[in-house]
């Protein structure tokens, strides 16, 4: 039922684990529904002074599809600037893992939402710092 790519990401998740000194943390999902994702990002600035995702990691409580797409989204996001990262759609994630069974499509939404939430959290913290 799962693609080879997804199974690989489930079994060998990339960028997995807590990041203690993260600049932003996104927490999405609902344990009552069986999936929760935490996304940690470290933010850097490129030559043009634009912020980008310098490092990223995740922790996921959920099914194989949730774990696999979590892993994939961190791979897709790494090195991207915020705009690019925020544009990673759920279907892009689903495609990247080689497709998902229909009733698992919501899992890729979790992954892209988690990424957005981490960026949002970073921005909020920056605003707070600025105040």
């Amino acid at each position, binding site marked *: 039922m799962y693609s080879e790519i997804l199974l690989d990401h*489930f*079994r060998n998740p990339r960028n997995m684990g807590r990041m203690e000194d993260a600049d932003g943390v996104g*927490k999405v999902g609902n344990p009552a529904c069986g*999936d929760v994702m*935490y996304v940690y990002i470290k933010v850097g600035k490129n030559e043009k002074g634009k912020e980008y995702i310098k490092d990223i990691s995740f922790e996921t*409580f959920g099914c194989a599809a949730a774990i696999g797409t979590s892993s994939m989204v961190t791979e897709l996001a790494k090195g991207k600037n915020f705009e690019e990262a925020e544009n990673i759609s759920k279907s892009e994630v689903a495609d990247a893992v080689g497709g998902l069974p229909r009733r698992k499509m919501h899992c890729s939404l979790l992954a892209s939402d988690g990424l957005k939430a981490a960026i949002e959290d970073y921005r909020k913290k920056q605003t707070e710092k600025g105040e």
Partner: protein
Amino acid sequence: MKRVYLDYASTTPTDERVVEAMKPYFSEKFGNPTSFYSFAQEAKEAVDKARTEVAGLINAKPDEIIFTSSGTEACNLAVKGTAFRNKNKGKHIIASSVEHFAVLESLKWLEKHGFEITYLPCDKSGIVKPEAIEESIRDDTILISVMHANNEIGTLEPIKEMAEIAEEKDITFFSDACISNGLVDIDVEELGVDLLALSAHKMYGPKGIGALFIAKGTGIEPLIHGGGQERRLRSGTENVPSIVGFGKAADIAKKEMKSYVLGMEILRNYLIEKVLRIESTKLNGHPEKRLPNNANFNFAFIEGEGLILELDFSGISASTGSACSSPTLEPSHVLTSIGLPHEEVHGSLRITLGRETKKEEIDYLIDNLPGTVERLRRISPFKGGFDDYVKGTEWKGGHKHV
């Protein structure tokens, strides 16, 4: 790859002796038992014999057994058949909240057709309290349905006590024994039930055949209408080979149950003892009042589908009550009924042993499980406990419940 099947509650392999017994009825003694001529007599006699064998397993009379196409159909027939037959008497039904979907979905459908259902709660081990029934009975109650044993957590219900209450009030009592048949002695007379559902493929019989015990004098309406087979209670050309197979399986179970159950139970207890050594793990269901082949664990902080998949990579077949692995994306209603908190309900693993399960197979699972759980916990944001996010947040995302 090594294959270790530990999901015997889902289905069992058909016993070779059962397959052997079925064989002549496909291409050779293939007559339609309802036919008049002597050639069909062989088929008719085979069906009669099987009926006697199935009746024998539960101490019923042969003419109290109606063959159906599955445990599911038997449950539907029991619930809807009783409801429609008695609808002028009343439209209230009492059922446990841990019934199988075959019962629950039938009840849901009846609700749409004007029936009213009271669901009985159960305690933390899954046991329905007979007193709860007493309190729920109304003048218009026409049916009480409590399963004989639960298919997920294996809990055995106090059927005899409940059936007594029903009997006193002259209410039809139905018990779904699809998962306990072949694992526990069932004596319908002793239990005092009016209706009892059986499923062959859970006890080394073929798939696609079940039976409903209907005690003499119990009024019930057919679910499937037609040519009037099965004493006009279940129409359709009799599935002779499968009926014969069910009979054979019942006969085998009756003769061999005592011996295979004993070994199963020892091995299951050994498994439980070993698995509970894993941190943040508990056993779902009742410590003693449970099916001899059932172990249902809960591993905190991880989700069951991933666990099943990991075990599958190692060749182990098992099941879980997690939402992700269910077609409806709902977590097990049984696990929520026994009061598992939302965040824990997804981390269950059901291991069910078979007659032929060997210690080395259990050891293989025991060897695999700690590492697998550990690996998934490393991925999980929840390590030693659920954090504040779980306790106090407004959730975004997650499954859309359907």
